[in-house]
């Protein structure tokens, strides 16, 4: 059971890593003018909800499987994702708004955020990997 939880988390985490990389690539494309703000934002906004869900699922899973440490580790980022999604002003076209992304250094802060998430997911990836292997080999680990 334990190992199933972690293997699922591992897969989910991989997806989130790919997503973070995709965000970073797309944002840097925008930075370099390869794509325009409009298409960049519509591409990214499509993936905001999957990201929120993907992360929330892992977090909840950790909670119900009573892995407190990992749960608490995930909580802040999951909360931030949800908060960011909820707080989008009614007039904006999503978390990424093409009319504002070039203003007030938003592009940079989005980029930074994606980087941090990438780092975090990598960390989680190895943690899940370790946990799942150790769960698979010696059952008592919890």
């Amino acid at each position: 059971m334990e190992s199933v939880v972690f293997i699922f988390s591992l897969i989910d985490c991989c997806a989130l890593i790919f997503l973070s990389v995709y965000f970073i690539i797309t944002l840097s494309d925008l930075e370099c003018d390869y794509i325009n703000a409009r298409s960049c934002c519509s591409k990214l906004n499509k993936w905001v909800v999957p990201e929120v869900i993907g992360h929330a699922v892992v977090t909840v899973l950790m909670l119900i499987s009573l892995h407190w440490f990992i749960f608490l580790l995930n909580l802040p980022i999951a909360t931030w994702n949800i908060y960011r999604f909820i707080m989008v002003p009614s007039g904006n076209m999503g978390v990424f708004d093409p009319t504002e992304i070039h203003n007030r250094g938003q592009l940079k802060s989005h980029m930074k955020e994606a980087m941090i998430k990438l780092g975090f997911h990598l960390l989680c990836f190895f943690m899940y990997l370790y946990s799942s292997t150790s769960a698979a080999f010696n059952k008592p680990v919890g």
Partner: protein
Amino acid sequence: MAQPARPAASYRSQNGAGQQPYSNGPVQNQMMHSSDAQGYSPSVPGPYSHQTPSKVPPHPSSGQYNYSGSQNVSQFNSYQGPGQTLNRTPAAPLSGSPVQQTGPVPQVLPPALQNSAAVSSAGGFPPGVSPPMHPNWQYSQAPVSHPAAAQPSHSAPVAGTGPAQPPPPLSGNPPGSYQYAASPGGPSLQNSYMKPGSVPPPVTQPLTPLHPPSRPPLGPPPVGGPPLIRPSTVTAGAPSTQSLLHSATNQEGDATSAAGDGSVVQNSYDAIEGGGLMATPHPSAPANLKMNRNVGYSYPALPPGYQNTSPPGAPGMQASALQYPDGSKHFHQPPLGTNHLNASMGSLSLQQEGLRPVNLLQERNILPTTLLQAPVPNLHEDIQKLNCNPELFRCTLTNIPQTQALLNKAKLPLGLLLHPFKDLSQLPVVTSSTIVRCRSCRTYINPFVSFLDQRRWKCNLCYRVNDVPEEFMYNPVTRVYGEPHKRPEVQNATIEFMAPSEYMLRPPQPPVYLFVFDVSHNAIETGYLNTVCKTLLDNLDLLPGNTRTKIGFITFDSTIHFYSLQEGLSQPQMLIVSDIEDVFIPMPENLLVNLNENKELIQDLLKSLPQMFTKSLETQSALGPALQAAFKLMSPSGGRISVFQTQLPSVGMGALKSREEPNQRATAKDIHLTPSTDFYKKLALDCSGQQVAVDLFLLSGQYSDLASLGCISRYSAGSVYYYQSYHHKHNPVQVEKLQKELKRYLTRKIGFEAVMRIRCTKGLSIHTFHGNFFVRSTDLLSLPNVNPDAGYAVQMSVEESLTDMQVVSFQSALLYTSSKGERRIRVHTMCLPVVTTLSDVYLGADVQAITGLLANMAVDRSVSATLSDARDALVNAVIDSLSAYRSSVLSIQQPGLMAPSSLRLFPLYVLALLKQKAFQTGTNARLDERIFSMCQVKNQPLVYLMLMTHPSLYRVDNLTDEGALNINDRTIPQPPILQLSVEKLSREGAYLMDAGSVMFLWIGKSCGQSFISQVLGVPNYGSIPQNMTHLPELETAESIRTVAFISWLREQRPFFPILYVIKDDSPLKSSFLQNMIEDRTESALSYYEFLLHIQQQVNK
């Protein structure tokens, strides 16, 4: 500019030591000049080793030196800078710095002397701008200090014998005679000064050795020859002369030595600099001030066009090398060191003006009586002459801080305010097959690039060296080959290029205009359709365009009506689309038709349109679908959609709900400044992508959610007009306003499918944009339409420190299709100096631009956070900058609220912003009104924004011709601007308040009978009509003056401000009084209270 520290340091030094060096300087010069160059020159060069200027002497002897800046300029662009500086330096007298500037000093003096003497040199010394000053200065002094005898002797000097004699008197006297001597801080200066002085012997020797290296470059040219020779001779002769000098006065000797070794001196100064900035005003007399000013402008800066791009370090040598060839005509430029000095001096002098701390609490009449002008960047005159007009391009800090840290310290926003498409009376247009641009950053060639030689130019933004194309070598204006630096592109900071086909993605579009009218019951009630159709009818021929112009009409209520204007129809055919969920275009053609070919049909339609819907009972408004239809109609071609809307859209896509709660109007909380839906924003971006702009005319009595509707214009680069409570009968004033503004709107210039890019020198980066457009990629603004009444602003940061740069440049390039179907590029370039000290940053602050930029930032803040946040941020901006000034620049802590003179109006303007409709609290401002005001802040050019924020008040019942302007045989009186306080109003007067888009003429209760009868044309106060908006043109002198003044004010702006004549009981009196910014209102502080508040915070 690169050397921040120096200026300050030098300054002080000047104060303290000023006299000595100065006097010495002159002496030397004299010696040099008067004696035949030979004997003297050696000694001179020696001391000056570093400074090429030393070579000057030879030239003088040849009689060739031009002092005049102008000459220098014409011949060597690049050199001018230096040349002038040289000249100026002397002027700087006050400053002790002469030591450093030795080069220049010598030169100046001689002329003066000679002049006085009578002559010989007079020929050689063309009176330039600056030169005259010096002579005067010197003269005045000379008489005083010298015995009469001295002068006669000067005449002699030419012969060569005189030299020795003159010096003593000069040197001796000057110190005593110069006023500057007394200045505080002297000791330190003197010390510094002394050091160099004491070393004289060593200095001279090293110098000679040094010289050779410098010479070689110089040598080759004809002029150069003499210098070479001299050194040798000098060695022989030098001793004598030197000895003479030294013996004559110790001081002299010191001076020379000091002068000679510029670098040493500077260092010492730098050391001193630590001491504390001289922020305090100089004791010096007014005369000095004058001089200072001159000096100030001579900022070291780069020489124009040809400037040596050599880094500051590289210096004199190169410069001299370049110049020398031509040296015969001119002076060589001072080495950079000198420049620095000058620069420092310049800034010093400016400091007196601009940095003089003002105690705001004590300055009662702080408002200047004339309109505030933009500060002039502290650049060399010749560069400044070429610089962009501040109305087009303005920077909040005319001295750019070198690093972000410095910028942060100053607590002032760094940004640009642009008005790129302003109507210009003179605009050079260049047609050429190749447009010269930098190969790497694509900057257009401009007056601030440097030509390394005839074939290569160096980009002033990215510093890449580019080739000059063959075509560019020929100057079409002068028809001369080989003068790329004289081409109009390099002589004008504002220029327009005709773009070749590489600048087109598609063939230039025709002008296409689509009008979308709301014809619901509510709209018909207001009667606006009549006015609009009539105005449109009258101006149909004036619409900018050509034979390809197309026009179309759509009306809508709960359905959408199209009008087929097919050729051959006897009357327009109306097509109704009632499916508003999925809008389609009923027929592909004939909805947009050629204006010229179908004019009659169009006129028919415009005449019948107002009557067509009079019986309509439909109250719904399907604005969203109508806009979608309009977008579909326009998307193949691009163009302009003008939408007239009178209520909240209620059906179909984009329907909105009322969000205004009247009882919450007054509080700053929970008001809806953000759009409630992204429908309009998305549509606007779609429009932007298809080169369609939407202009919104909102004429409504009730809340219409401008915050949401406005997006349609904001992101498609349109403009918003708002006529509150428009009604053809009940509100005739709005009717007139609509007429006038619509006329301007229809007939003004327009640019289609435009993009604008703003570039700045490497190291600076733009991070935020304000205005109506869509930022398509990092620095590309997409402007489907551009109009001459739109202003833009950007905020910048210093990403990499601007070390080694003396100036930075900004360039905006606007590529658009004119209404005649030509693709054009309008380029503006601005050049500003870089500074390294905080005091210089404050010195160059442009208070109006800062206020404008802050207002833009505050709008963003109120939308993204809350209004009260934005208000706090505005107040904090004042507090932070003044406390930074107090703690970092002011050396002496004085009681009161001190502000640099450049920012003395800052608190006043910020208070005005706080009381502006966009940001005020506690009044019953309607939400739409507030949002409209915010739109205006974002979209208005700075001039009008400032007038809107802080109107000008004039007293007009006693206009006189004194100081009047004379334009085209019309005399326009120029009454002083009064402070905006009721205290300034008197019952006996009549006052005109000019608030940009409106004017109020307030008539006091006991206003002079003559004014009432002779200007207003009514018998007495009581009979002034309630809704008077016109002044009769009477034959009386008073009336002519008043009318001339008002129409002059109106002519200066593209729109037509309406004049309201108001009395004490007029309903508009409250809006008049609301503009009395310095007074207290129920919810806002008076100016004085605001200052006290600021003071409290600053001193905390």
